């Protein structure tokens, strides 16, 4: 029972981190109809910038400044890159962000080299917040939960309660009308892209010390973010939240409990072959849940796309 609670907390941390990435991505998608393949690269940039700033000014300034820089960079990418490619259609847009992801990874290696950076959580948060049955929960994790929740509430508030949010929501559905009303839609697009990438930057800043700051960090997380927003329903903020938490808990529990395929197959009435190591089915029999934990989201995504192409909460086709 205690372990379940611990796993719930761990899964929550993973899920909320994923949410911070997918929130920006889904916002950008619903606005511009483009899946930003480089989204996780902005997350990586957030971590690297924060590392560089923390060397000079400390962790907290990094938390403040790095997302701003990433957001400005993101807005620049929209203004000078994406807007240009937009005229060619959606597929080139997707390919552009894909190329950008490659380029950013190379750029990071060019500047910071290929080794992992010694980016650490601040001293003040390096203690154990509390322990459940011998499992300690570091204070930094509580801090991560705290930040993510604030961001979610803030985002929701801006989108539903402020004038800017209203315009954004209107521009989502009727860009032409909004433009006719005198709003600068390209500017809104640029702003949304900037804010979305800045959110990814925040995720990078707070995840860097935990998950490691190295050139492959974007690649490791890249496709799982897409999976999240596809499962949640493209363009849906609530969907992104639910899907992130679902993935966070699903993978955490699959790794924490050694569920074995052998038990499942036996339960289904199959008998284990005598010489398992000579059998062609040996790999099927020996699968355990930790082995496949990380591909569970992909299985889920493919199933969802087959049976419900607009995702859990989406209103329209992907």
């Amino acid at each position, binding site marked *: 029972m205690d372990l379940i609670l611990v796993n719930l907390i761990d899964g929550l*941390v993973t899920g909320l981190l994923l949410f911070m990435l997918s929130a920006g991505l889904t916002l950008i998608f619903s606005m511009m109809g483009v899946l930003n393949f480089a989204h996780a690269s902005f997350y990586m940039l957030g971590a690297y910038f924060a590392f560089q700033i923390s060397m000079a000014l400390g962790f907290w300034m990094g938390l403040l400044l790095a997302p701003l820089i990433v957001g400005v960079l993101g807005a620049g990418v929209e203004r000078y890159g994406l807007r240009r490619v937009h005229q060619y259609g959606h597929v080139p847009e997707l390919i552009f962000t894909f190329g950008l992801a490659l380029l950013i990874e190379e750029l990071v290696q060019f500047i910071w080299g290929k080794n992992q950076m010694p980016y650490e959580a601040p001293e003040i948060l390096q203690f154990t917040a509390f322990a459940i049955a011998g499992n300690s929960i570091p204070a930094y994790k509580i801090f991560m939960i705290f930040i993510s929740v604030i961001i979610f509430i803030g985002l929701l508030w801006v989108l539903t309660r402020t004038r800017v949010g209203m315009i954004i929501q209107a521009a989502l559905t009727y860009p032409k009308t909004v433009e006719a009303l005198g709003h600068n839609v390209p500017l809104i697009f640029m702003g949304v892209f900037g804010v979305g990438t800045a959110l990814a930057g925040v995720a990078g800043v707070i995840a860097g010390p935990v998950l490691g700051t190295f050139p492959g960090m974007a690649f490791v997380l890249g496709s799982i973010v897409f999976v999240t927003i596809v499962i949640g329903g493209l363009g849906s903020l609530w969907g992104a939240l639910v899907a992130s938490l679902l993935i966070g808990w699903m993978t955490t529990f699959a790794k924490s409990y050694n569920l074995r395929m052998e038990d499942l197959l036996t339960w289904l009435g199959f008998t284990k072959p005598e010489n398992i190591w000579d059998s062609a089915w040996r790999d099927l029999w020996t699968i355990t849940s930790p082995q496949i934990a990380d591909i569970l989201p992909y299985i889920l995504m493919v199933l969802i796309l087959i049976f419900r192409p607009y995702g859990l909460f989406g209103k329209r086709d992907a």
Partner: protein
Amino acid sequence: MRKSITLGVAAALTLSVSSFSVAADTIKIAFIDPLSGPFAGTGVNGLHQYEFAAEELVNKKGGVLGGDMFEIVAFDNKISPKESLIQLQVAIDQGIRYIAQGNSSGVANALTEAIDKHNRRNPEDRVLFLNYSAVDPALTNDKCNFWHFRFDANADIKMDALTDVIAEDTGITKVYIIGQDYSFGKAVAAAAVRFIGEKRPDIEIVGNELHPIGKVKDFTPYSRKIMAAETDAIITGNWGADMLGLGKSVLENGYEGPIFTYYAAADGITAAFGETGEGSLRLVAEGQINPPASDAAAAYYESFKAKYPDGNISQARITNVIEMLAKAIEEAGTATDVVPVAYALEGMEHESLWGGSVKMREVDHQLIQDVHIHAHTGDDITFDYDNSGFGIKVENTVTMAAMDSPTTCNMRRP
């Protein structure tokens, strides 16, 4: 149009090909390892160690065969077997006869087979494979061949040494084995189970599991399980980001016992562990860095650090590769025909720069050497890693580890 394109290709190929020339007075060693991509850090550091060793240990002493110099030629294999085979072909065309590779047993498996086939199919330009780091036991067992020489202790030998230490520690009654889900991780787990069963049947193996390699973002669930199993020790073959992630995660979540491992040093890992790893990390490796085995070793390390302040001598065996190759070439009297060189290498005994003597076992071309158990610590470190103030210090030594270990190698000699 097609024609003009192909002409362009022709020009490009000619350019690239024309730069391949063979100088008579240098003996080239192809270094085929990742120099770009996620593992480039390790590859580049290895390259520096090779270049430094060739310069210091051979060229500055007048070369071999009365003045022939060693030259290390770097090839980027992007840690891909396919790219390695292409680069192998390019290297052979450049007239290179010695191939050094180490990172990833997958690449080593591909290379050793390709070299075996090449040497069979092209007897006029055979090459030798100097494997300095790939430790999959199969390379000197089922998959052994005459052209392959391994200078690192293989995974089984290292596990033998590790379990010696575990067996002596009566405080350990439970161990947890965790590793990456691929051939090396599985080999480590199998060897650990076997040796512990032989040496301390009373030790309970409370966990034995594999996780996907390079894909785990957060090791917390695994460390929860390890904590729940109340183990006294952890054994893992993890390397790179997987080692760092696992190690940091278990330590952060309250684990205080020892972690027995292979690759938890240098390439940024020592710096990242820093204070947290103190007292827990135990590494098995050849080559004694701290305390320095001799003045010569200390001087060698110092001059290396002077040249590469950000580098580490993390693969001490590289000096053995260079020195033994130089000796074998002298003995064979030729560097172009690799068969006598290979025969000279077989059975060669050598005094390592890092202390102790080593011997290239004839039967399977596995170098038999002293294997040390190091502790990750900040105390008493002469040469730290990653300029972090932390380094590894020898705690136990197994002399000439696994000298009589069995092998399934059935070598065909030319």
